[in-house]
């Protein structure tokens, strides 16, 4: 027990465990009666209320850091130079690591042969192998949002001249999302009285499950698809479309007018934007001649004039129109700014997930980021050659295909985040006009143009 510092603590201690210090009253006997002559009153000096003479008016703020100081010469700041060095080292390290690991497909084959060596029956071996693949893909989807949320917060912060999370985890708040996730796990799960309880409970599940299922045919690099099915593209669009039902259910079941408006808006928006999104990749499918994502990526191998990669985005006119329509429609499909009308926070508070809390809310969050990742993976596979290297020369070709795919995907994700923190929001009717009167007709025109290419 440490020694108490102030007299009040001393008294508390003396009454308690420590008997060393007797109560103050026992030591000091009561003072004898006061003498007849009253003590002279202490002279109270009333000072004139003056300003502190040191105060020159500027003291309060002269040392405050204004943006004017920082913007003059950023490179003169040590932290700025150190940050640039760290970033360079990070990129170089990532390059070295990926080049050292190499392609993942041989490692996978090694693992598969190990599994089949351990298990006697081939049926059990293939079952275990499928389970392993499911686990890996599942973890990609569950872990990626943790990173993406942190990344989005950092990017938004730097766009807005802030720092973002800096504390949790030490280095630039990299554990912030984990902490938030733990917090959400412990939050109370509130179901409003007015809610339709079962539908309210079911809605987040119906939103999340298709988001996870849709990742099955994505090929994350050369021969890295969990399920290499021939109708991959069709499967993804079909499964991802189911999420709309969950959102409408969430809006309806919450028993909240804002949620209802948000749910109805999103039903209209998501169903509408499915169309240009699907039609915009028809040219890609025509060029590739397949619905298999791996084949689509492989069909983009090779270089024109030995320099320009034969990616579909580089096909003159058709490729660019196709890419832009797909990107815009993907942003709309993922409910992000400038198309975040279902959850327009300044109008509808939080739209369809206003009445969800705790893990239910975070499931919606997870689904949103999973769809962002899915859209980025698809863009990388359809238009950017999947895991192909952009340049045919040595240092670039050392990087394995999965790393290229990851880099391209993250590049598109960055675009998504960039849009979100730059653009204002569309209005509902203008959004529909934009879809039906602009995107959809142009995607049809694009198909016609692509057919001309094929004829030539």
């Amino acid at each position, binding site marked *: 027990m440490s020694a108490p510092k102030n007299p009040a603590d001393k008294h508390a201690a003396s009454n308690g465990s420590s008997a060393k210090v007797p109560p103050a009253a026992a030591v000091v006997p009561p003072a004898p009666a006061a003498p007849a002559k009253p003590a002279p009153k202490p002279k109270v000096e009333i000072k004139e209320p003056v300003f502190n003479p040191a105060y*020159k*008016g*500027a003291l*309060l*703020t*002269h040392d*405050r850091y*204004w*943006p*004017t100081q920082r913007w003059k010469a950023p490179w003169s700041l040590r932290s700025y130079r150190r940050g640039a060095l760290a970033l360079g080292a990070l990129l170089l390290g990532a390059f070295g690591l990926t080049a050292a690991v190499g392609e993942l497909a041989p490692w996978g084959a090694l693992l598969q042969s190990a599994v089949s060596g351990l298990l006697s029956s081939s049926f059990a071996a293939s079952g275990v192998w499928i389970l392993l693949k499911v686990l890996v893909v599942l973890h990609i989807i569950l872990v990626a949002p943790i990173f993406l949320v942190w990344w989005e917060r950092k990017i*938004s912060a730097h*766009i*807005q*001249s*802030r720092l973002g999370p800096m504390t949790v985890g030490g280095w630039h708040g990299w554990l912030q999302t984990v902490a938030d996730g733990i917090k959400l796990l412990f939050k109370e799960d509130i179901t409003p009285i007015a809610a339709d309880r079962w539908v309210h409970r079911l809605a987040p599940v119906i939103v999340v499950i298709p988001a996870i299922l849709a990742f099955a045919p994505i090929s994350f690099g050369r021969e890295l698809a969990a399920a290499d099915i021939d109708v991959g593209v069709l499967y993804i669009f079909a499964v991802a479309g189911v999420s709309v039902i969950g959102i409408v259910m969430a809006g309806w079941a919450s028993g909240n*007018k*804002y949620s209802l*408006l948000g749910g109805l808006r999103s039903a209209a928006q998501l169903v509408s934007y499915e169309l240009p999104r699907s039609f915009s990749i028809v040219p890609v499918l025509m060029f590739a001649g397949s619905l298999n994502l791996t084949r689509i990526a492989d069909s983009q191998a090779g270089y024109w004039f030995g320099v320009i990669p034969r990616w579909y985005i580089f096909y003159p006119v058709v490729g660019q129109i196709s890419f832009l329509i797909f990107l815009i429609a993907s942003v709309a499909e993922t409910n992000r*700014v*400038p198309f*975040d*009308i279902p959850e*327009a*926070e*300044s*109008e*509808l*508070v939080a739209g369809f997930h206003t009445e969800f809390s705790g893990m239910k809310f975070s499931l919606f969050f997870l689904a949103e980021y999973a769809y962002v990742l899915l859209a980025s993976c698809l863009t990388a596979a359809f238009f950017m050659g999947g895991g192909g290297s952009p340049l045919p020369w040595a240092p670039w070709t050392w990087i394995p295909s999965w790393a290229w795919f990851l880099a391209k995907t993250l590049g598109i994700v960055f675009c998504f985040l960039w849009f979100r*923190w*730059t*653009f*204002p*929001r*569309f*209005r*509902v*009717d*203008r959004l529909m006009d934009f879809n039906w009167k602009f995107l959809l007709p142009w995607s049809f025109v694009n198909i016609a143009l692509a057919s001309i290419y094929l004829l030539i």
Partner: protein
Amino acid sequence: MSAPLVTRQDEFLKTDELFINLGPQHPSTHGVLRVGLTVKGEVIVKAVPDVGYLHRGTEKLSEVRGYHHCVVLTDRWDYVAAMPNNLVFCLAAEKLMNLQVPERANYLRTIMCELNRIASHLLFFGTYGIDIGAFTPFLYAFREREMVLDLFEMACGARLTYNYIRLGGVMSDITPEWTSKTREFLDYFKARLEEYDSLLTYNPIFQDRTKTVGLVSADQAIAWGLSGPNLRASGVDYDARKFEPYAAYDKVRFEVPLGKGGSCFDRYFCRVREMGESVRIVEQCLDQMKEGEFMAKGVAKVPKPQPGEAYAHVEGARGNLGIYLVSDGGQSPYRMHVRAPSFINLAILQEILEGKKVADVIAILGSIDIVLGEVDR
């Protein structure tokens, strides 16, 4: 002007109207405003603004407080731009007391009011971006607003409720450090104004959301008693700084930005350009200002003006802010009445909201730029 409320669909489908309480707890009513919305799908049928959630009775309170103390009350009306509030009360009280304000104090009052206009319009710029769905302009605006508030803190110690403009002058003089800091800010801010334009003003989505929405004709604006940027956006050239100059506004050159159609975009753009004019005014004031007294001699500690009445009005950040003061010779006003521009501007909402979309409600409400502290007083 309004969209057709009854469409052909209604003949076949039975639809119901939905009543939505927009507020008093809502992210974009800028305080505790409640708007009772009756909507048909996404279209507004009826909108009734409901005020009074922030009523603190400052007009009544002023009847039991001395004139010096009333200045403190004025800070709490429009807490985003408190300097013009201070100023308008002091102008009215000085009229009652026949006080002459020194030249330097007039300049200081002008500088502070214009800096506060910049701070207030920056808040509008930021929150309007959020209303439309763009989050980033908000933080850009607050980065600069922080600098203005720092300047206020240097000048008077307070960042929001200043009580800086006092009867007969101002609280304290400014220092050379303050002047140099202010010039630094103004130079910096001019470049930022262009940045705002490229970030938000010329964004096609933003223009699409605001240019055809919330149209207020000049006649309508005058009939509803709009003032400030809301009135000037409709093309009515009225600015109290120009037409009945007070403080040092007759000694500086500036323009009054006017809009054409009275749309949300016009109201927004008027404010953004007013910030540029405010920069001009502050620069001229700093150039012209001479050394001298900042407080009039012989201001009574407990003023008891002769019985009478006075009206003073200034161009506040939100419009024409007026004060009607009646004195019965006692040490506190017999009656104080405030012409609060936010309150009067708010009234037009019920007319222009009808037939608009739910998303437009936010765009229009934001463009009128109310401060609930002033609406409810």
